[in-house]
């Protein structure tokens, strides 16, 4: 069961990373629309009403996804200078502690993100209504942003549980002195 989860963990990581390679093209979109805005404003005195708002929204979702991506790709930053000197046996337990803290973090954040998303999707009287930007364009981007944040948090919960499961499968290896995979 655990080894199955470990394989699933690797598989999901690969999917998240592959999808990240699509998401990152959004940065090129930002370049292009930013350039378009400058040209329209400077050369044609016709600034757009949509570039600024789209840019902040696109950046926000790419940054949120970037956090998930880095977790899958194990690219987040850690201070490992101390734990690097531990015996693999002790290191396994410290890592387990870290894994559990990460699960705690992702669960709490998901709960908070859920409450936020509720407020952004439903009015006080309970009707479905997306929170909008209130600008001249008045897009539902604020609601989408909060919704996407909730989604990212859920992804992090799933990943953190899978990463922990994978770590558990490495118990016997660690006890026989083999160094396991690090989160960073």
């Amino acid at each position: 069961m655990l080894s199955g989860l470990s394989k699933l963990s690797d598989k999901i990581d690969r999917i998240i990373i592959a999808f990240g390679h699509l998401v990152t093209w959004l940065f090129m979109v930002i370049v292009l629309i930013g350039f378009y805005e400058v040209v329209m404003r400077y050369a044609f005195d016709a600034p757009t009403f949509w570039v600024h708002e789209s840019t902040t929204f696109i950046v926000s979702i790419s940054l949120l996804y970037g956090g998930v991506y880095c977790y899958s790709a194990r690219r987040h930053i850690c201070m490992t200078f101390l734990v690097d000197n531990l015996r693999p046996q002790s290191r396994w337990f410290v890592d387990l502690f870290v894994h559990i803290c990460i699960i705690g973090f992702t669960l709490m954040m998901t709960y908070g993100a859920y409450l936020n998303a509720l407020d952004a999707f439903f009015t006080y009287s309970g009707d479905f209504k997306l929170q909008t930007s209130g600008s001249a364009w008045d897009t539902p981007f604020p609601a989408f942003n909060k919704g996407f944040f909730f989604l990212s948090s859920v992804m992090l919960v799933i990943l953190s549980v899978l990463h922990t499961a994978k770590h558990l499968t490495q118990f016997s290896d660690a006890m026989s002195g083999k160094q396991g995979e690090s989160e960073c």
Partner: protein
Amino acid sequence: MLSAMGIGFATLFILVSMIVLLLAGMPLGFLTGFVALGVSYLWFDTGAVMQMVAGRVSDFTEGYTFVAVPMFVLMASLLDKTGIAKDLYNAMRIIAGRLKGGVAVQSMAVAVVLATMCGIIGGEIVLLGMIALPQMLRLGYNKNLAIGTVVAGGALGTMMPPSIVLIIYGLTANTSIGDLFLGAVPAALILAGMYMTYILAICHIKPGYGPAMDAEELGQLTRADLIKIARDISMPLMIAVWILGSIYGGIASVTESACMGVVAVMIVATLRRELTFTVVFDALIQTIRTVGMIIWVGIGATMLIGVYNLMGGDKFVSNMILSLDISPLTVILFMMAILIVLGMFLDWIGVAMLTMPIFVPIITQLGYDPVWFGVLFCVNMQVSFLSPPFGPAAFYLKSVAPPDISLTDIFKSVWPFIIMQIMTMGILIAFPEVITFMYS
């Protein structure tokens, strides 16, 4: 539960848990947020506050100021993945000639020029980290010196106008942003001057730190080599002129100019026939890797500050200062010390959000010039970018540096530069005229 123990205890609790988790190797992007959410539950005895704490994440990523970060990372990656950067450094090496440490000094000069184009932390470091660092290492420069040059020089982006740090300070403190910009110039130049002097001195004292070309190699240069040098320098120079022109010519905002920069690099790369799908794709992957990691460190700080303010931490800090019966000068020094300590653990924006509402009224009450204090704050944040354990400059560099450079290597390299930054603060406190003459 925690609230029964008081805010002083809670502050200690936050610090200790951060250090423990840090040493255990928890990813920094999750660590501060975990502490923030956990403390919010322990202090308020309810999960409801997590809505606010978590909500700060999407507020933060929505902030327009961050748009420039991915743009600069993208621009840097493109310069690196095409041959533009390498050619530039080969040329710079020849120009430096027999001057020991010449390429590092030139890199510092490049850093100052880049600082006038970039207003945020990160963009410049990534740029220098991808371009200058591997090249200096290739040319045989000492690793620590090269790393220090890149992080300290890159951090100047927020010291030299335009600077988001000064803008946020100006808005929070309601002081003239123009005066802040003017006052920051001499401070930035003092910093850069010190860095350069240090580089030249240490390369002079320790042979091998900054190897120069020998006479023989210089003698072998042909006319064709010189033409190539001129060409290799002119392309990056054109990109710089394009970006500077778009900012100072009123064409693009500082943030938009980062987009303009990417476009310019893509045009130059096309001219050099180097713009391929792989180059662009690799650059984009580098971008999501860097920003995904870095932004989450800032996210943690903003979560923590939100909770801490709600717990009344702001009052705790302000009472701590007001209750001390000390001379005005000591108050300033004390504030600087608090900023340095906070800067070790929090992103600058978190530090600013927590302390500026408290510090600025006190400063004005004591009769100090808020513009001068703003520049001082800005220099102090230069320290925060470099200081471990949370040193954004170090993290940015780590995300793009060659894999054999560890975070420990980076933090080992920064301390001479931190000392120079603290010396600069000393100069500005002892001789405020150095700044104030610019605008009064």
